[in-house]
């Protein structure tokens, strides 16, 4: 048994350098994906930054200090071309709401996390539509609903990616 432990890669594995910063870094990287040369006529692609952000917050309450949400959101606004301040306010609000959810829920499993994430995603889509209509471009619900649905269905993928990054950064 000792020999097998020595032969494997299980020894000398610890957190990678800068393990504290990898969650925030991965959210910023997901925001940067908006630079992909995709020209879409409907805008139904999921918002990668938001999904990664919610996935990390679902996984860990201490992925980053709560106030980091503001600079991360500002970066997302700048990269995606959203009205400046929208993700900043929205993501900070998500951090605060999730603190409440953490206090209130007695039990957590896959389905509850997905349900809470779906509510957060739907609320974000609603805020985004409201801000767009204040900016003179009212969003039809026929356009906003599929986008939110696609985002909800893509969430498990983002959660999976967050879990893999988490394992890698902690060296597990």
């Amino acid at each position, binding site marked *: 048994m000792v020999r097998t432990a020595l032969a494997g890669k299980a020894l000398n594995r610890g957190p990678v350098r800068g393990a504290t910063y990898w969650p925030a870094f991965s959210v910023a990287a997901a925001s940067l994906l*908006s630079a992909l040369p995709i020209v879409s006529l409907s*805008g*139904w692609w999921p918002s990668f930054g938001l999904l990664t952000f919610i996935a990390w917050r679902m996984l860990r*309450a201490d992925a980053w200090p709560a106030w980091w949400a503001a600079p991360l959101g500002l970066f997302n606004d*700048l990269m*995606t071309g959203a*009205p400046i*301040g929208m993700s900043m306010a929205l993501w900070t609000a998500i951090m605060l709401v999730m603190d409440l959810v953490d206090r209130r829920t007695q039990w957590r499993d896959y389905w509850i996390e997905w349900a809470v994430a779906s509510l957060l995603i739907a609320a974000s889509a609603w805020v985004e539509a409201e801000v767009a209509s204040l900016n003179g*471009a009212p969003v039809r619900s026929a356009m906003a609903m599929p986008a939110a649905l696609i985002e909800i269905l893509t969430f498990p993928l983002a959660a999976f990616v967050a879990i893999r990054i988490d394992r890698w950064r902690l060296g597990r």
Partner: protein
Amino acid sequence: MAAPAGARPGWSRRAQYSLFFGFLAAVAGLIVGLILLGLSIVSPSSYQVVRGVALDVMSPATVALSDVTATAGGLVSGAGNYWDAAEQNAGLKAQNAQMRREIVKANAVLQENRQLKAALRLREERREAVATGRIVGSSFQSPRRFAILSVGTSDGVQIGMPVRAADGLVGRVIDTGSGTSRVLLVSDRANVVPARIMRGGVPVISTGRGDGTVDIRPLEVGRNPFKRGDIIVTSGTGGLYPPLVPVARVIRLDDDGAIGLPLADPSEASFALVEPPYEPAAAADAPLPERR
């Protein structure tokens, strides 16, 4: 799995304080975010510089990635073209002959037109494009319809300039970085284009629908003047867009208007021209980039 116990750092006073001040900072961040959002709704032009810098930060990645996909796409469609080359060849030959006949006709009309204009002493203004760029990206994650264009202030592009492709109108510039700019597409819901039907010249208004199509309404209420297949061209009213640029083709009628498909598809158009505003005064006194 039981729910996480919440952020309770134990008995350490230092940890408790840092958690508490973190919470205060988060609330402050929320308030600052709301203020910035309010400012970007009330006066969007206050962020022009910041947005320009953000565009410049992104532009190397966007332009390089778009080159890669263009090359890959070219390989695929190139192979597809070889597949039925013979049939395509015959079709193109027939088209070529047809075009040649039409060019002769058009040349005759052009010459006649020139003579008539000379007789009327109409001065013809030459409009030259400010810059030529490629559409390298879009706002594929948001309900708004923006595109990223690969030219910026270093090429002479300024906020408010109209953008067109060979097939028709693309939109207008709303943000400029030094090497890239952001374009409000014709299909965005905030983009209103004064236009008219090419057949008959009935004045209409084209508004984006956010899903790649435009909503076209006649200015005068009454009988629905549209027919399927009608071409909508800009009227030049308002002075931003030059007249007679094709905007859309009518694909469906509804009770008092029609739905049109923009003729310049931003995902297909390889080049886009940035032109100076049709009447420079329009860009100066009407703060067009405000509406976004």
